[in-house]
């Protein structure tokens, strides 16, 4: 309660700021210049770099939003290109991949080929899964419509994670056509008449705040936020204090998340309060401290009283004729991140977070952290992703425990280090990246003490302005106790574009999945490559009809001759995809 009062008081103060903002004179920038970009399923995106200052400008370069706590909303550019006038701006991004996953029938019938071709059935295709990597992405499209002037801007986002013409009219089953997902007003008042070297921004509405992305302009190699990304409607304000070329910043916000009413959902109306502070030393050292607190205290809902279904319904107040009041839940994140810009030696990011869960199965995805959607976003929250082992029915799915998370990424350019005398305008850029998670679970003894580790590298050589060849390697160890779950991915690619730094990119990517134990004995077997808690239905790896999806849809492909219930995951996939941002 004290948190609520505090949040409301501080939030109330922020609401007064737009008034003074509109009274302020002079030019005020319209928020960010970042472009928006890639990402996979489940109403999420990450971003790609915005356009650099035009070459013809011979100019100063735009001031670019940096990470390490400064990932404060990046939605295209300013609503207007000129000062003072109300105007319209339109930004967007899409990724359109043709995915081919190759597999084999164990024993084909007459008239059936041995080789099968289907959509991707590999671990990690799901966005809310620890095994998620950008190697197996589906389509993603987003449009941002902005209207504003030099002080105030509004933005409306339209997003979808499926393209219905080449797939199916996916408006109901998984909600791929997200629709109008965000809308907000952002006010950037000019405070120079009141105080020097202070910048302010207030944002009210439905929008993302993003903390702990490993990339300079996006969420990094794993497309994950080690501190958190918000999915709320609410408000945030930010103050930047400039001291010469250094900046001290603070940020504070409140919000709410309304959960899905689906009967398989545990979560309740979720509240969020978050505060952040950091320093930016001449864009060389950026350090941020973060605190995010999400919780529920809503009264109980009606629920399915089928005893067999109760295991899925932690928030169900009745067990038979006995009332069992579930506790209010909370999911808190404490974290810090550091970014070092080492000029020619590249850029290094490291972030740490402690995710603390108490009856978090009732906490919806107000905070997306480390591949998990809140505490109990269906089976894809912290409760399902970390605190309970998939397939282990011993877990009570309450969402009690905590997780230490570390994410690191080092981006470098060998062509910069070696120099243009050797490389000319060719570029040879690379990344090293890793994520580590240590789980303490009170839900499930089998998940308690589990360590998760994944790491990888990416190298891309661009001999020509319009062509590049790249290679990415990933190694994932989902469970320190079960080596059979380990797998690796090798991904060579060809990239075509019209010029350096161009907005569009056409890629041809091959993936080779290498599993420590590819085939499971049963669908509940833990000693093999694991499907996600919430596989992509209707055709994702492990998407069984009636179990992980509505009973009125087909399940994923299976082989009736296989020992397990499902087809083993694919080993070879091929993707031809187009992306562009503007």
């Amino acid at each position, binding site marked *: 309660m004290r948190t609520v009062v505090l949040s409301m008081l501080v939030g109330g103060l922020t609401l007064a700021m737009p008034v003074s903002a509109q009274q302020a004179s002079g*030019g*005020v*920038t*319209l928020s960010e*210049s970042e472009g928006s970009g890639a990402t996979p399923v489940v109403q999420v995106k990450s971003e790609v*770099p915005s356009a*650099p*200052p*035009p*070459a*013809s*400008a*011979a*100019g*100063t*370069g*735009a*001031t*670019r939003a940096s990470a390490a706590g400064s990932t404060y909303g990046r939605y295209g550019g*300013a609503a207007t*290109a*000129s*000062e*003072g006038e109300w105007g319209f701006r339109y930004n967007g991004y899409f990724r359109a991949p043709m995915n081919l996953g190759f597999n084999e029938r164990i024993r084909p019938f007459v008239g059936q080929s041995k080789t099968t071709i289907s959509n991707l059935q590999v671990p990690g295709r799901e966005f809310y899964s620890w095994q998620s990597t950008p190697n197996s992405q589906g389509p993603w499209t987003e449009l941002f419509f902005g209207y504003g002037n*030099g002080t105030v801007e509004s933005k409306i986002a339209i997003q979808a994670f499926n393209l219905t013409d080449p797939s199916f009219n996916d408006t109901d089953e998984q909600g791929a056509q997200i629709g109008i997902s965000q809308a907000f007003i952002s006010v950037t008042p*000019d405070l120079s008449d009141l105080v020097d070297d202070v910048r302010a921004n207030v944002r009210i509405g439905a929008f993302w705040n993003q903390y702990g992305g490993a990339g*300079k302009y996006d969420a990094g190699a794993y497309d994950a936020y080690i501190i958190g990304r918000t999915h709320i409607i609410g408000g945030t304000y930010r103050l930047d204090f400039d001291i*010469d*070329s250094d900046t001290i910043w603070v940020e504070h916000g409140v919000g709410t998340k309304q959960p899905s009413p689906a009967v398989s959902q545990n979560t309740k109306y979720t509240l969020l309060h978050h505060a952040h502070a950091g320093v930016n*030393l*001449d864009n*060389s*050292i950026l*350090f941020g401290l973060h605190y995010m607190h999400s919780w529920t205290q809503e009264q109980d809902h009606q629920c399915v009283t089928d005893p067999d279904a109760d295991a899925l319904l932690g928030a169900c107040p009745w067990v038979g004729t006995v009332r069992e009041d579930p506790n209010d839940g909370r999911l808190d994140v404490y974290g810090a991140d*550091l970014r*070092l*810009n080492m*000029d*020619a030696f590249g*850029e290094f990011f*490291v972030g740490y977070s402690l995710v603390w869960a108490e009856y978090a199965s009732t906490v919806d995805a107000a905070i997306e952290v480390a591949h998990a959607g809140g505490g109990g976003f269906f089976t894809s929250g912290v409760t399902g992703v970390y605190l309970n082992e998939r397939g282990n029915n011993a877990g009570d799915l309450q969402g009690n425990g905590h997780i230490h998370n570390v994410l690191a990424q080092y981006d470098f*350019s060998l*062509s*910069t*280090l070696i*120099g*243009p005398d050797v*490389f000319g*305008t060719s*570029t040879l850029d690379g990344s090293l990246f890793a994520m*580590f998670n240590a789980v303490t679970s009170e839900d499930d003894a089998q998940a308690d003490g589990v*360590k*998760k*580790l994944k790491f990888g590298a990416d190298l891309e050589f661009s001999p020509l*302005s319009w062509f590049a060849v790249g290679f990415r390697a990933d190694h994932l*160890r989902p469970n*320190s106790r079960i080596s059979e779950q380990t797998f690796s991915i090798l991904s060579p690619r060809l990239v075509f574009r019209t*010029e*350096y*730094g161009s907005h569009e990119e056409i890629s041809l990517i091959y993936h080779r999945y290498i599993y420590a134990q590819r085939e499971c004995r049963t669908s509940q077997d833990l000693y093999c490559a694991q499907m996600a808690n919430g596989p992509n239905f209707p055709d994702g790896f492990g998407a069984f009809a009636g179990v992980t999806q509505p009973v009125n849809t087909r399940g994923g492909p299976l082989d009736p001759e296989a020992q397990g219930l499902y087809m083993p995951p694919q080993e070879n996939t091929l993707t031809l995809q187009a992306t562009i941002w503007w």
Partner: protein
Amino acid sequence: MKATVWMRALAPGRASVLRAAVVMFGLALVACRVNPTSPDLESSAEGKACPPEAKIEDGEDGNNQVLVQDGRSGYIYTFADAEGTTIEPAGGGVFNMTAGGANGSQYALHMGGQLASSSVVYAAMGLNFADPKGPYDASKYKGISFYAKKGPGSTSKVRIKMADKYTDPDGGVCGACSNDFGMQLSLSEEWQKFIVPFGALRQESGWGNPRPRSVAPEAVFSIQFAVNDKGKAFDVWVDDLAFTGCP
């Protein structure tokens, strides 16, 4: 690599070492930052003063050409974005010196105006080293010195940048040009002496092609003083530009 290896690395004892290493590395980065107004630079190898032929421009002759000596003969100019930024002297015209130089001198280089509020704005004044525009070999020097100040109400943020063969389109190399090596300066309303070693100049991160490790002093095209503080007024004065650190 087994997870246990990582776990051992993160064990309490090792964690302390790691934390210390990160802190030390960060402090080292901070320590590497050059303070261009530090008097200590004047006695450094990069900042020590050079003979008179190293002087680039002091404005005292009142014309719009750099001092014609040591192979330099370029002109002085201004430019700005097309988003509504205003600048005086106006771009495309003849650059005029302004009365009131540093250290009691008569004239200085001066630009003033108002930056627009668009997402990418800029205004700058620059000095080409050669005319017709071409590369100039400044490899015998190690830095540049000058005096600078801002007027009342002006942004204090100015970036000095040096276009070289890898960043200037006329260098014939760059695929994505104009990310010149530079340094962000903070001006006060009093004249201050700045010394900027070539080795302290950095490109902006995230764009440009190629991205060399450092500026190429053997083929530099120009020096520019640029502002990009959106929506802000600017009133920037510069005087007594000279190369430093000669043999």
